[in-house]
């Protein structure tokens, strides 16, 4: 249909009386034609006033039934909406907590697994070094006559590890650690690591030297403030040669 033919259908379109596909064709044209849209507005105004004309021609007694039902419906919808919002917020919070818990649990588990694997690996090394018939050992004795602590440092010619084991050590005290200092045959002294005694005072550590068969000529266990890098604290145990 051209513009003129469309205009002949505007009145019927405003009344909703056009058959398909005429209706769709007119609607498409009007959407893009300002002139036709303006004319249609006037006829739609006529159509929209028809029910009010009917209402004043033959009024129907008012009723409050629908108003009450609608108010109830809106309130219920609003309440459902509020409940749905609250549930959604609670669900998001719970989900967040669950994710954090799972993440933390997984992290804790991963840390535990790593520590456990490290411990197993250390225990294997300790066993390999200490149990070898070729193991070299340096005995550590208590510096104080009041102490019954003791220890040993082991090495093995075909492995690079130094194993230190101590027994009956008391707690190091707040902010202090037991450090193991090992002196090799070339005169260098290194911090082999920290000892954390268990409830029986037993502790061990493994130090990896640069090459197989490190020769230890002396060792000391000192109690130091945490974080020091030089053997400056009280000597608790020492080897005869240290």
């Amino acid at each position, binding site marked *: 249909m051209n513009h003129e033919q469309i205009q002949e259908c505007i009145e019927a379109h405003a009344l909703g*009386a056009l058959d398909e596909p005429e209706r769709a064709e007119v609607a498409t044209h009007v959407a893009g034609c300002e002139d036709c849209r303006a004319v249609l507005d006037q006829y739609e105004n006529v159509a929209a006033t028809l029910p009010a004309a009917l209402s004043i021609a033959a009024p*129907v007694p008012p009723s409050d039934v629908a108003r009450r039902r609608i108010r109830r*419906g*809106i309130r219920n919808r609003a309440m459902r909406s509020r409940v749905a919002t609250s549930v959604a917020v609670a669900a998001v919070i719970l989900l967040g907590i669950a994710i954090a818990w799972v993440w933390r649990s997984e992290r804790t588990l991963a840390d535990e697994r790593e520590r456990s694997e490290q411990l197993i690996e250390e225990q294997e090394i300790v066993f390999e070094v200490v149990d070898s018939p070729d193991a070299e050992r340096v005995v550590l004795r208590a510096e104080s006559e009041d102490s019954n602590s003791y220890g040993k440092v082991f090495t093995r010619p075909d492995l690079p590890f130094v194993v230190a084991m101590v027994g009956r050590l008391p707690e190091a005290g707040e902010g202090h650690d037991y450090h193991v200092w090992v002196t090799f045959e070339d005169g260098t002294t290194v911090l082999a690591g920290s000892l954390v005694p268990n409830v029986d005072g037993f502790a061990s550590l493994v130090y990896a030297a640069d090459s197989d068969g490190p020769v230890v000529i002396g060792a000391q266990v000192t109690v130091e403030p945490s974080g020091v890098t030089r053997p400056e604290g009280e000597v608790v145990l020492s080897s005869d040669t240290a």
Partner: protein
Amino acid sequence: MNLAATPDEALAVWTARGEIAAFEALYERHAPWVRSWAAHTLGVDQADDVLQVVFMRVWRAAPQFDPARGRFTSWLATITRNHMSRQLGRRGGEHRALAAVSVEAALAGQDEAGEDAAVRSEHADVLLAALRSLPEEQRRVIVLAFFNGMTQSQMAEHLGVPLGTVKKRVRLAMQKLRQSLAADGLETPRLRMVKDQ
């Protein structure tokens, strides 16, 4: 805020934001004619059900109403008409014909117009007078099309007249009704509101 003096389109926008007071103002203004239309076409016993369905639809669909595309009254009339047409369609042709007779009789009657103050408007008064002055066959096609949801071809079949005759009656009737509003300076310029106003 005086909601009674606020245009329908602004109330509809506020309704879309969930403002119940705006929705109730629209209800006060338009429920009487929706109820009257329902009572004349489906029966008084169905009028409250229609009101409920139509205005709950308005509440839910208010965000879809676009003032730039037309007046609120037209939008509400379309919602009402669609619902009414579906209901009439379920009841069959005989009921549809009876409903048309009821509406036509009300619009053609020469009685003093009622005192339905809620819908009393200059537009409606002028339009009612114009409807009453139309030839019967022209008024009938208006009723069958708008209030009973018939298309032009359905009206031609229902009335037993050629389709061209129905088209001519529709055009003439609508042009006269429009002219009656224009003569009284009641034509409404197209609204150009934007939604967020």
